[in-house]
Structures are given as structure tokens and as C-alpha cells.
């Protein structure tokens, strides 16, 4: 039973990463209706930005996490300029290729700058273990990941529901042209969306970088995982992405412990193909940005 609780706890921590990257992916899908292949790279850039802040600038790790979000957010704006805005109006499929091309560039530039080998991002709380009775134990870093993830989801949900810009974003997601007629600056909403979507992935990278290690290709598998999450939760659905991320993390962790470790990465993929076929709008999905 201890194994069960320990695996479940670890699974939820990993799931929180999936959730944060998937939130960015689903937000950008909700507004642009494109698949952003750079989402995994933004996660990786978040980790490397935090690494540079800690290892070269000797900043506090927590400050580094806070810095990584806006820095990568700005990188996200550049990504939008390069790979999305020149193609507005073209077939949706070309965005997969243009953002994929950009992801390849960014990944290889980071490889050239920092080398292909894993690096360690040090957090002061990475080794402090907290035990929960006899059930399970987590490092303080992992608890920080959980708390931070929940906080980001809460803030984003409130922002979209009540914030001025958040409501404008939902309006653009529902009907871009009508929103523009109502005086909403659609270009500005695009930029805000990309900034937020990039920032959330960056946070995930900076957080998990201190749990594992960081490497230039760390975002690739995560990108595929966040597809799984977003499609299962419904494209454009924030609660769907958040819950979907946790469920996937949990399923992989428990399945890896009890069923098969080698094929645990396949669970989500098989589930996703099933969802695509039976319920293309996702398990929690409705139309529009929620």
C-alpha cells in the first residue's frame, strides 16, 4: 500500500508538469486554433533560463523561477512573430510545420550553447524530505511544484473569468471578428495569449528542472504528452488540461508500477487515439475557451 501512495504522489507531481505545459498549449489553441509545436521548447527554455540565473548570475532559485516566466514569455512573443503571425489565414496544418521548424532551431541553438549533456538546476529545497505518516514522502521541491501549479491554474482561471483582458480573450476565442467589431484589439490579445502560454510552460520547466536534470531535448516527450492531455481534456478547455494532466501523470505512475514500466509512455497515447475516435471534443470539452 505504501508503494501505491508513493507512486500516486509522484504521479501527481509529474502530472502537474503535464498540466502546466498543456495549459499553455490549450490556451494558444483556444485563441489561435493552431497546434503549437514550440510548447515543449518553451518548457525547455524555462529550465535553461532558470539555470542561467542560478548558475551564472548566482540568483536565488525561487527568484530564477519568477524571472524565467516573463523572459520566456517574451521569447514566446518572438516565436509568435516568426512562426504564427506571418501565416494568419493559411491552412491550419502549416502552423504545425512552421512552429516545428522553429522548435528545431531553438533546440539546436541551446544544444550548441550548453552542450547536449544533462545539467543540474539546483534548488535549495531539492533534498529536504517531508514524510506524510507512513504513507508517502515527497521532497519540498515536489511540494513546491504542486503548490505553484495549483496557484498558476487558480490565477489563470480567475484572470480568464473576471479580468478585463481575460474576458476579451474569451471573446476572441468565441468569435474573433465580432470581438474585433466590439473594439477588442485582437493583435494585442494574440500577444497576451502567447506570452501567458509561454510563461506557464517556462514555469513548468524551471520547476521540474530542479526535480530531474535539464537537457536540450527535455521538452520533446513532454510536448507529445501535453497533446495527449489537451486532446483528452478537450482542446481549449483549461480545467480539462489541468485535470487531464494530473490524471495522465497518475495513470503513468501507477501503471508503470503495477503493469509495465517499459510501455508506460504508451498509455496516454492509446487513450488519446481512443478519445480522438470516440469523443473528438474531449472528455470535458465544449466549444470555445473555458
Amino acid at each position: 500500500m505504501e508503494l501505491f501512495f508513493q507512486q500516486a504522489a509522484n504521479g501527481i507531481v509529474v502530472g502537474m508538469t503535464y498540466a502546466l505545459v498543456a495549459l499553455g498549449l490549450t490556451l494558444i489553441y483556444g485563441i489561435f486554433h493552431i497546434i503549437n509545436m514550440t510548447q515543449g521548447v518553451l518548457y525547455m527554455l524555462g529550465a535553461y533560463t532558470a539555470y542561467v540565473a542560478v548558475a551564472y548570475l548566482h540568483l536565488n532559485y525561487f527568484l530564477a523561477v519568477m524571472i524565467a516566466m516573463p523572459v520566456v514569455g517574451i521569447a514566446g512573443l518572438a516565436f509568435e512573430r516568426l512562426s504564427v503571425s506571418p501565416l494568419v489565414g493559411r491552412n491550419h496544418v502549416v502552423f504545425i510545420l512552421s512552429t516545428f521548424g522553429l522548435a528545431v532551431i531553438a533546440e539546436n541553438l541551446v544544444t550548441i550553447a550548453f552542450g547536449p549533456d544533462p545539467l543540474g538546476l539546483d534548488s535549495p529545497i531539492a533534498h529536504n524530505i517531508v514524510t506524510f505518516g507512513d504513507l508517502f514522502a515527497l521532497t519540498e521541491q515536489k511540494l513546491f511544484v504542486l503548490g505553484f501549479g495549483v496557484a498558476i491554474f487558480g490565477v489563470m482561471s480567475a484572470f480568464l473569468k473576471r479580468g478585463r483582458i481575460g474576458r476579451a480573450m474569451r471573446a476572441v476565442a468565441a468569435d474573433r471578428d465580432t470581438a474585433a467589431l466590439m473594439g477588442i484589439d485582437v493583435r494585442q490579445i494574440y500577444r497576451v495569449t502567447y506570452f501567458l502560454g509561454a510563461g506557464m510552460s517556462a514555469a513548468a520547466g524551471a520547476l521540474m528542472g530542479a526535480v530531474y536534470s535539464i537537457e536540450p531535448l527535455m521538452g520533446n516527450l513532454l510536448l507529445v504528452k501535453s497533446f495527449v492531455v489537451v486532446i483528452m481534456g478537450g482542446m481549449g478547455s483549461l480545467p480539462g488540461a489541468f485535470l487531464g494532466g494530473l490524471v495522465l501523470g497518475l495513470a503513468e505512475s501507477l501503471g508503470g508500477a503495477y503493469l509495465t514500466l517499459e510501455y508506460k509512455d504508451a498509455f496516454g497515447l492509446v487513450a488519446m487515439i481512443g478519445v480522438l475516435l470516440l469523443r473528438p471534443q474531449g472528455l470535458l470539452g465544449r466549444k470555445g475557451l473555458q
Partner: protein
Amino acid sequence: MKWAHVPLRSRWAWPFYGLALLALPLVFPGEYPRHLLVLSLMFAMLATGLNVTMGFIGYLPFGYLIFFAIGAYTSTLLALHAGLSFWLGLPCAGIVSALFAVGIGGPSLRLRGPYFAISTLAFAEIGVLVLNNWMDLTRGPMGIPGVPRPFILLPGGGTFVFDAGLSWYYLMLGILGVTLLGVHRLLTSRVGDAFAAIRENEDLAEAVGIPTFRYKMLGFVLSAIIAGCAGSAYAHYFTIVSPELAGFYFVITTFTMVIIGGQATLAGPVLGAVAFTLLPELLRAAKIWRMVIFGALMLAGIVFMPRGLRGLAADAAARVRGSGRA
């Protein structure tokens, strides 16, 4: 004589092109240039297969490279465990890839746009997981070495082994030639019209009675067969296969070749394949920058020249012809 008067596309020009292709490896003696030529032809085949689904039907099969790996492993396993020669392994690779394409296309082709792309990607990821983890069959990430070279028995009793760049060049030229001819025949038939109809407006195509699903499946299976055969040739040329065949490097390279070469044209992907096999070799300093350059060209190609090199060439030819007349 003005360029406009050179009958580049006349039927009398084709034998000259054929002779030029046959003479090409003789002009570049040495194993290394010939190796690059063979590699160009293999990539040309791979890109041609991708182009059938991506260019002509307008569906993006993001997991396409898994068929390349399936073909390579099929041919390899048959050669090592059943003693099948390359000449039987190649068609078997095509058939097995086709069967997988039916299995993957069945569900995936019911989806459209990005969903199709992601669905094929998911199947490919599962395939890569299997290749990496089914150790007894595939030896996992280590790959399988020792794939035998193809050979033919000579009338005199000797054997001729395809082990040098020169013989492989002519072999691949033949395989690619047959592939291009087949694709050309298909596209100039009613099937090509159906593909174009699906690409331009699938709902309308469906409405006028074109069985779109069947045509999409036909194209997808054809793509897979071509990729599978290319995989088989790759395995017997390099004599080693590994899960890397469906990995990032081949995905990026093949997609860039089709995009930059020009989608939905026969010559485009071939041009792209030759250009992108030779280009990185010419820029020797590009070693570590190679993938950066590929990514940049992919992005720039999509943004600035949606019709690719082939489109640029056509525009230039039209301009020359126009000025020739004036």
C-alpha cells in the same frame, strides 16, 4: 540562342536527361561523392512518399517516418531470420508497411487537419516505443547490425554483390525511377483528380460522390509502401537499422526536403532531397549548425515560398519564356 528556345521539356530532351543521370557517378569518381548520390536517391524516394499524402492529398502525416522504420526492420528481420534476399525483402517491406498503414490510417483518416497529424504522430510514438523495448526482436536502441548486402548470381556462376556506391547508385536510380513512374501514372489518372478534389475542398468532393475515405486511404497506403521500400533499401545499404530511423533527424530532414522542394509536384521533393543531401556536406563548417539551418529553411520555406523550389523554378521559367517572346 536564347534560353527560351532550348526545348527543355520536349520529348526529345528526355533521353539526354537519362544519359546525364547514368553518367553522373562516372563524372564524380570516388566512394564519398557516390555515397552522397545514393543517399540523395534514398531521400528522394522517402520525400516522394511523404509528398503523396502531404502534398497531393493535403493531409499531414506527422508520423510518416515510422513506415520507413517498419520497412527497414521488416527487410532486416526477414534477411537475418528467414534468409530472404533483398529482392524479396523489399516487396515484403512494402507489404508490411502497407498493412500497418491500413491499421493506422483506418482510425486516423477519419480525423482532419491537426488531429490527423497528431493521431499519426501518436501511432508513430507507440511504434518507436515498441522498437526500443521489444529487445528479443529488435535489440532495442542498439539496433540490428549485419544486414546482408544484395547480390545477384551471374550467368557464369559467380555472384555480383552490391557493395559499392556505383552499383547502389544504379540500383537506387532504378527503384526511384519505378516509384516516380508509378506515382506519375496514378496522379495523371482519375485518382489524381480525386486527390486534388480532396485537397481543395473535401466536403465538396464528398458531396459530388467521390469516396474520399477510400482515396485518402489509397494515398496513405501508397506513401507507406514507398517509405517501406526506401527503408528496406536503407537497411541493406547501411547494413544496420535502429529506432533512430523514425527519430527526429529523419523527420526534420524529410519534411524539410518536401517543403523546400515543393509540395504536390513530382520533381519538387526530388530536387529538395538532392539539395538537402548535398548542401550540408558542402557547408562543412555547418556540422553543428546543420539542424539549425534545416529548421530555419523549413520555417522560411513555409513563410516565404509556399510552393517551394519547384515553384520558384516554374516562375523563373515562365519569366524567361515571357521575355523571350517580347
